[in-house]
C-alpha cells in the first residue's frame, strides 16, 4: 500500500512548549489508523498540522501521495481531500443546516456569488441519504443550535463525505454520543474503509478504536511512543501496553522487562 500522507520529523512548539517533537507518521491508502494517547499527548496538534491549521517548525516535512507540500493551509488540505470531524464538531450554531454543510466551501460561481438553491437542494438530499434525518421539523434552513449530539455528528460527518474526502480525520467523534449514535459513528468509519478511503480515528476510548483500526499509533508527550498492526496484539495486550506507555513513555514492553 502506498503512502497517502506522510509526516517526517514534524515538530510544533508554542513558545517554550513542544506540543509535538520529531513526529514520523504515515497513513496508507485504504487504511484506518487509530491514534491513541492521553490528554496533552499531542493528538490535537497533530491533527491541526495535518489539516494546515498549524504549520510545522522548520525541518519538518509533509508529503501527500509522495509529493512534498511546502506550505499546507486549511483550504489547500481540504482541496487535497483531507476532511476533519472535530471533537467540538466545528459547527456554526446560529447558521442554517445548509450553511454548515458547506461551511468554508460554499458552492459559488467564479465571482463568488453563492449557488444557494443548489446548496439547499443538496442539503435536502443529504438529510435523507446520509444524515438519516427523518423529522419534518428539520429542514435545510433549520439552525443547528438545537440539534442533538448525534445530529450534530451527522452534519459533521456528512460534510466530510460530501466533499469526497480521501482522508477523514475523526477527532474524538464518539464524545458525548449515546450508544446508538456511537454505533452509527463506528459504522461510518467502516464505510470509509469499504469505500477505499483512509481515516485517522482519534479517541480516548480504546474499545471504540480497536475494532475499526488497521493499525494503531500511540502518542505520548508529543512523540510517537510506538505503533503496531492490530493483528499483532489482542485488546488486552494493547491495554497493558498503554499502561506501560503511561508509565514509561515507550510502547516497547521488552525495555520494561530488561529493567
Amino acid at each position: 500500500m502506498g503512502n497517502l500522507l506522510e509526516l517526517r520529523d514534524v515538530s510544533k512548539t508554542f513558545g517554550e512548549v513542544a506540543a509535538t517533537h520529531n513526529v514520523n507518521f504515515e497513513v496508507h491508502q485504504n487504511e484506518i489508523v487509530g491514534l491513541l494517547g492521553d490528554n496533552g499527548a499531542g493528538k490535537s496538534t497533530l491533527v491541526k498540522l495535518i489539516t494546515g491549521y498549524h504549520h510545522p517548525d522548520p525541518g519538518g516535512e509533509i508529503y501527500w501521495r509522495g509529493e512534498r507540500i511546502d506550505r499546507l493551509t486549511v483550504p489547500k488540505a481540504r482541496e487535497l481531500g483531507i476532511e476533519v470531524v472535530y471533537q467540538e464538531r466545528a459547527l456554526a450554531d446560529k447558521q442554517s443546516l445548509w450553511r454548515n454543510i458547506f461551511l468554508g466551501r460554499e458552492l459559488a460561481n467564479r465571482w463568488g456569488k453563492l449557488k444557494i438553491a443548489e446548496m439547499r437542494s443538496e442539503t435536502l438530499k443529504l438529510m435523507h441519504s446520509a444524515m438519516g434525518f427523518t423529522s419534518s421539523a428539520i429542514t435545510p434552513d433549520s439552525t443547528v443550535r438545537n440539534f442533538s449530539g448525534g445530529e450534530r455528528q451527522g452534519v459533521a460527518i456528512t460534510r466530510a463525505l460530501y466533499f469526497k474526502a480521501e482522508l477523514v480525520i475523526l477527532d474524538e467523534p464518539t464524545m458525548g454520543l449515546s450508544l446508538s449514535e456511537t454505533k452509527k459513528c463506528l459504522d461510518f468509519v467502516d464505510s470509509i474503509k469499504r469505500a477505499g478511503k483512509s481515516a485517522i480515528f482519534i479517541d480516548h476510548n480504546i474499545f471504540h478504536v480497536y475494532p475499526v483500526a488497521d493499525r494503531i499509533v500511540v502518542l505520548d508527550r508529543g512523540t510517537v511512543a510506538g505503533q503496531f498492526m492490530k493483528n499483532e496484539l489482542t485488546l488486552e495486550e494493547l491495554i497493558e501496553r498503554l499502561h506501560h506507555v503511561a508509565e514509561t513513555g515507550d510502547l516497547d514492553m521488552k525495555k520494561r522487562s530488561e529493567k
Partner: protein
Amino acid sequence: MSTADEGRPRSQTVTIGSVLKWARRYSVQLAIVAVALVVWLLFLIGSPRTFLAKDIYISFMTTTPYFALMAIPVTLVVITGEIDLSFPSVMAFGMAGFDIVYLATGSMWLGFITCLIFGLAAGYLNGVLVVKIGMPSLVATIGTQFLWRGVVLIITNGQGLDMTKIENTGLVNVLVGKIGGVIPMQFVWTIVVAAIIWFFLNRHRFGANIYLTGDNIESARLMGVAVGRTKTLTFMVTGLLAAFSGFVVSAAVLFFWPTLGEGYLLNTLASVFLGGTSVFGGTGTIFGTFVASFIIGAINAGIVAAGLTGFWTSAIYGFIIVVSVSIQTLLGKRLT
C-alpha cells in the same frame, strides 16, 4: 431566528403552514417593520398635522441617510463579532483629506477620491489593530476615534472649509441633488448602498464568511475561512462609507466643519441594534438596519414635533440601544 435574507424556490400553492414558515424565517424583519408601523402610528396620533404632510417624509429622506450610510456597513462589523466606534471621526478625517487636496490642487474630484482613500485607510488601520495586533475592537476604535479627530483638528487648525465653490457641480448634484425637485439623492444612494451590501452579505462568499466569523470564529478558522481578512474588509467598508457619508453631509451644507460626525455615534449604533443585529455576532440583516435607521430618524423628528427639547434624543437613543440589546441577550439565553 433567521440569519440572512435568502431566496428559496417558490412553491405553487400558498398554505397556512408555508406562510407560518415564511413568517418564522423572516421574524426579525417582520418585527422591525411592526415596530416601524407602531412608531409611525404613535406619531400620527400624537402629531397628525406633521405626520400627514409630505414635508416630514422628505425631511427623513434628507437627513436619515447621513447615518444610515454608516449603520449599514457597521452592521457587517457587528455581525463579525466586532464593533467600530471610530466612524464619526472618520467622516471628518476623510473630509480633511478632501480639504488638503482641494486647497492644494483646486480639483474637487481629486479631493473626493482622496476623501474615500482616507476612509479606506482609516478602516484598514482598525483592521490591523484588531486582527494583527489583537486589540479588542472596542478599545482600538475608541483610540482611533480620538486619533482621527485630533489629526483632523491639527490638519485644519480647527478651521472649517467653505465649499460653496463646488455648488451645482455634477458631483454635488449627483450626491445631494433632488430628483424632480423632491426626492433627495442621498436617499437614493442609501438604497443603492444597502442593495449592494445586502447582495454581498446574502448572496456572496464574503457574506457567508462574515456570518461564520461572527457565529463561531474557531469553527470558521478550522474550516479554512480567512477570518482576519474578513474582519479587516468589514472595517474598510465602514471606513469607506463613513468618509462617503462625511462628503455627502458636507456637500449638502456646502461647508466642512472639523467637528463633523459628532452626534452620529448614538443614532448609528441604535439603528444597528434596533434592526436586530446581535451584539454577540453571527446574526443580523441589512433590511433590519435600513428600516431601523428610518425609525431612529422618525424618533428624532417626533421628539421635535411632540414639543420636547432636543435633550431628549440622547436619552431615547441610549434607551433604544439598552432595550434592543437586552431583548437579544434574553432571547439568546432562552435559545441556548
